[in-house]
């Protein structure tokens, strides 16, 4: 007891001290380390990588001309760039200059042309069409049919929508391609803010609609007439002309030539006449041939019962795919694909398509309609990569691609 008495003060002080020691900090909220925010890469930016590559010097000039250098050098953004090497650029400049810059001119001349003569808007159109948002490595580009649609950074009508973009159509079917242009080594060149693929030719952004070509091509007058006939009685915007003129559409048109239409129509009219009591033979055939000799056949009232709007529409839509397929994306074995006809006849098997590849381009491609006895042939460009309006295959438009073919495809 005495001890307790004596030690009261000591215990008081000890107690106080102990409590002070105990009362050290209470821990603050337990924190959870997250993945550190992706920092800015120290690797050179896209523009600097292109600048550093001697074979990309002409394209670099075009980037400078386009005014997009700062954009692609902004390391807080990520892009994929398709870059044509100097050889491809020379061909492009020669063509763009209307031959004023000959193919053999020194690079300084090409470079000077870009700086002095190429409109900045054209340069910006090309560079932005060959630039896509985010890093798209070739391993992410599918080889499946149809082409992989991927937006570029080119907005053709920013006032219409901030989200509008012209799209590119890469594929890795039988090599690697941007639209119908081969992607060549080196693929997947990594920059600090994206990835670069080299392409064999300059890919220009499409300028026109499919209908612009069909409407003006002297060799597609029957197709044009057929489309107008098919549209009769239909109200816009549900018309085929509407779709072929709509930037939102994404189509592949197999365009039978006038000769192909004439042949098919002559046969069909002949059979119709014979069925209607005309004598079989040359005179009736001549009559049929005369009737089919002009695209007005589709607006001939005498034939309205044979070439009804619905029948013609059925035939026309059988030539159109709801996707975009360049020939280099075609399968190498005959494969059925759906056409717009399936919109009305869902069970229809479609058309059978097939391509034969050379090195690297397609040398032959065939299309077979269900009602056709033989394959129709895609009329392959006389030389690789002939652009609109002169080519016959892989003609690229804002809303699709057009291939001329030598037969009318018959759905049944």
């Amino acid at each position, binding site marked *: *007891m005495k001890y307790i008495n004596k030690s*009261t003060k000591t215990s008081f002080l000890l107690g106080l001290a102990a409590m002070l020691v105990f009362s050290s900090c*209470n821990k603050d909220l*337990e924190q959870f380390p997250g993945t550190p925010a992706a920092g800015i890469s120290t690797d050179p930016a896209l523009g600097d990588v292109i600048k550093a590559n001697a074979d990309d010097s002409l394209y670099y000039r075009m980037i400078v001309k386009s005014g997009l250098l700062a954009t692609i050098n902004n390391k807080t953004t990520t892009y994929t760039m398709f870059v044509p090497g100097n050889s491809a650029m020379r061909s492009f400049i020669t063509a763009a200059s209307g031959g004023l810059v000959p193919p053999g001119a020194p690079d300084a001349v090409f470079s000077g042309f870009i700086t002095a003569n190429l409109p900045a808007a054209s340069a910006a159109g090309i560079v932005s069409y060959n630039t896509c948002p985010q890093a798209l490595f070739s391993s992410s580009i599918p080889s499946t049919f149809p082409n992989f649609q991927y937006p570029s950074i080119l907005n053709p009508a920013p006032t219409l929508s901030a*989200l509008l973009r012209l799209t590119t159509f890469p594929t890795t079917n039988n090599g690697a391609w941007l639209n119908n242009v081969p992607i060549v080594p080196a693929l997947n060149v990594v920059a600090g803010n994206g990835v670069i693929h080299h392409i064999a030719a300059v890919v220009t952004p499409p300028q026109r609609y499919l209908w612009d070509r069909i409407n003006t091509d002297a060799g597609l007058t029957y197709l044009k007439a057929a489309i107008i006939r098919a549209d009769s009685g239909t109200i816009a915007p549900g018309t085929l002309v509407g779709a072929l003129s709509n930037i939102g559409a994404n189509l592949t048109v197999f365009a039978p030539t006038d000769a192909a239409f004439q042949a098919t129509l002559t046969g069909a009219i002949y059979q119709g006449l014979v069925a209607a009591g005309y004598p079989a033979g040359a005179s009736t055939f001549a009559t049929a041939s005369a009737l089919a000799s002009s695209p007005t056949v589709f607006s001939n009232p005498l034939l309205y019962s044979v070439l009804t709007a619905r029948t013609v529409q059925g035939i026309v839509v059988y030539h159109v795919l709801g996707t975009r397929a360049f020939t280099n994306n075609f399968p190498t074995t005959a494969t059925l694909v759906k056409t717009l006809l399936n919109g009305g006849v869902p069970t229809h098997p479609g058309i059978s398509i097939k391509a034969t590849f050379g090195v690297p381009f397609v040398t032959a491609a065939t299309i077979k309609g269900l009602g056709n006895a033989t394959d129709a042939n895609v009329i392959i460009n006389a030389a690789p990569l002939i652009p609109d309006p002169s080519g016959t295959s892989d003609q690229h438009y804002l809303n699709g691609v057009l291939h001329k073919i030598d037969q009318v495809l018959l759905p049944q």
Partner: protein
Amino acid sequence: MRKVTSHLVALLLANLLTFTAFAQDVSISGTVKNSNTKEAAGAVSVTIKGLSTGTFTDDKGNFKLTVKNLPVTLLISSVGYELQEITVSTASQHVDVAFKPNSALGQEIVVSASRVPQKIMESPVSIERISAAAIRTSPVANFYDVVTTLKGVDVTTSSLTFKTPTTRGFNGSGNTRFNQLVDGMDNQAPGLNFSVGAIIGLSELDVDNIELLSGASSALYGPGGMNGTLLMTSKNPFKYQGLSFLVKEGIMHTDKRQRDASAYHNWNVRWGKKISEKFAFKFNMELIQAKDWQGTDYRNYGRSATNGAVKAGTRESDPNYDGINVYGDETSVEIRSAVLNAIGVSAPFLKNFIDTLNGGRAINVSRTGYTEKEVTNPNTVNFKIAGSLHYKLSQNTEAVFAAYWGTGNTVYTGSQRYSLKDFKMGQYKLELNNKNWSLRAYTTQENAGESYNTTVATQYFNESWKPSGGATGWYATYSQAYLGARLNGLSDAAAHTAARAAADVGRPLAGSDRFKAAYDSIRKKPIKEQGALLLDKSDLYSFEGNYNLTSITHKIADILVGANYKRYVLNSEGTLFADEPGSPIGINEYGAYVQASRKLIDRISLTLSGRYDKNQNFKGRFTPRATVLVKLANNNNIRLSYQTAYRFPSNQQQFIDLNVGSVRLIGGNQLFATRYNFAGNPLYDFEELRKGNIVAVNTAELKPESISSFEAGYKGLLMNDKLLIDVYGYYGQYQDFLGRLVTVQSGSGVAIALGDTSKGNRLSIPVNSADKVKSYGFGASFDLRLAKNFTLAVNAASDVLKDVPTNFVAYFNAPKYKVNVAFGNSGFGKNKRLGFNMAYRWTQGFLYQGDFATGNLPDVQTLDAQISYKFPSSKSIFKLGATNLFNQYYYNAIGNSQIGGLYYLSFGYNIY
């Protein structure tokens, strides 16, 4: 039954009629003073030896008594003093009593352990008692907080005035496993189902004592006391008289961490008056006003799952950030399926690009929220007013009419954080107390005022300034801006930032007039009208009676019987419960108990109790209790008990129908099967569906949960009665544990599909767990009286949950170890006028599981301290005190307020 009733009536009448013989002749008077300090000793019992006649001294120590004839022997007694006998032989003699204080331990009398008064040393179950003196010397700012210093007590602090204590685990911000009784009335809000102990109940000056029964205690107090029962008793105005007041002025937020330093006001007034030997009344008022502590946990939370977790990420780094104390960001939409895919359809040229975003995975985006600070009222107010009238019908029978009313603003954590604004609750009772029996009728009238769910209010607020859906809605704007930014080459993170900036154009700035006007209109609108207001006006009506038959049966055993009837009336006008305006839901509950105790042999007493309860929506339940007290020596007892307890599913678990943002909480009553068409559109396990498994949920009938518990303890006085030791150990087993399960119904009404994880109707239903869980623990306390009035008290306790099945969310929420140390002196220095007290508390960290949020709590230490100076002549005390002296912010539930230091100076007048 009828026969029993008529007997009871006869007994009652017999007792009532005795007051006709209540007539005296000789008057004697006197004064009782503390022999040490010479201060007047109030509330001292003065009784006549051999009779039950008696009175109490008033606040000046005076008493007056009339007796039939002289001489008489007066017995002067009070806790903390030595019993004194004085013989009075002449009427003119003024009796002066020098009352000798006795600081001996273990002298207190408790009544709740066996429903009859007994010495605390001889309680057969674990019990703790807080006396008015303990409150007086405690450093805490609010008397209710003294409870947390008792051994084995855990507390969950929702805010400054909203604290929820319990023992033996299973705590939460609204604890339904721990009963709180105020003067015999259940203090639970009938609708919101939390006990309002600190908010509406007693005020500090009127607390006579608080008794805490740890562990299962249904056998005597009815369903609910699974983990313990807290009984608070107010001061009887016959005994405690005079005008007292207590003013505390304090300061909080001194470090400006949560807000600028602000004042704490706590004013108390009590007036008790004995008009005559037959009639007394009292009046109490208490006001607390302060700027509340805040929930400032802005960590990211995975909340949509039932078993959520804190995770990495901030508003800046995680587009789907859901901050714990950030509201409105619970609205989360997967923008790929909700918006981007549709863009891909209308603009097919973007489809493939959209498919590549975020690696083709879901892109979940939450709306921009507001912090708790921005959406809750910073003022916490608590105003209590209470009064009672006491009339002695006879010497042995007292009639009491008492009213308790309180209102307050505070913050409470349920499944969400609720801002209780102008919450009101009144309790009114009529009671007849006889030496042998009591009858009590009371009602609890709740009114949630303008209380609202901060999560839902903020979500609707966000909808009000910009709807989430629609072509120009927040998510459409966000998604388009996000897509546009990605198309412009921006990184995912930068695109989300840009998108949020675009979608948040026009977002009202917190605190602006526009914000306040819009927010107020939402929070004042009922939930059904796309608001967040809880219209809860639920009531409880309760009747109970107890009869102590011992005077008749004492030869066989001491026998106590009692019965009660409760009726809940749930009235939320459909905003909280499945009721309709004008047709509230009624729930009837009744029960009865009997207790028999007897000394088996000289040193061993046995008590057996049994109780039967029936709720109209559930099968009846019987709960037995058996206790044995073994007297080793005088003031040295061993106690053994087997107790059972259970609780009916709470009113909310039965009838709630409340959208809390991410899910709709519904009750377990069968009416919900029809209301939500379980038959036509069955329920599936939401978590399983998220994993890709379709697992049907069968809604079984809800059962009450129960616990059986064994306890052994020892209480003894050692070292010349200078050391009081109390130790206990317990083992309990829980069965049919009540929890919740998140289910999902098909959103389209056809077969369930994986997409219903986002499109389906999420319903959280109450379920009984098939698993049994066990808990065990111990507690020990040492109270030491040192020389010169110094005291040292140390207690420690441990609670452990065992055999918890994997994935089972038990909400155990108890630290494995906790320690309290208190060191103080109630009178030292010159004239023993100085006093001080220091209380240190340490609780070990643990995994806190809550409906609102789950996460790890760190160890917490707090130190409270006070130093005081007394003026014995006026019984006045100056006190300088601090809770959480070192301002070390702590929190004891995830998402709850973080508590800092509170420093106060108080002056109390006529405190005894």
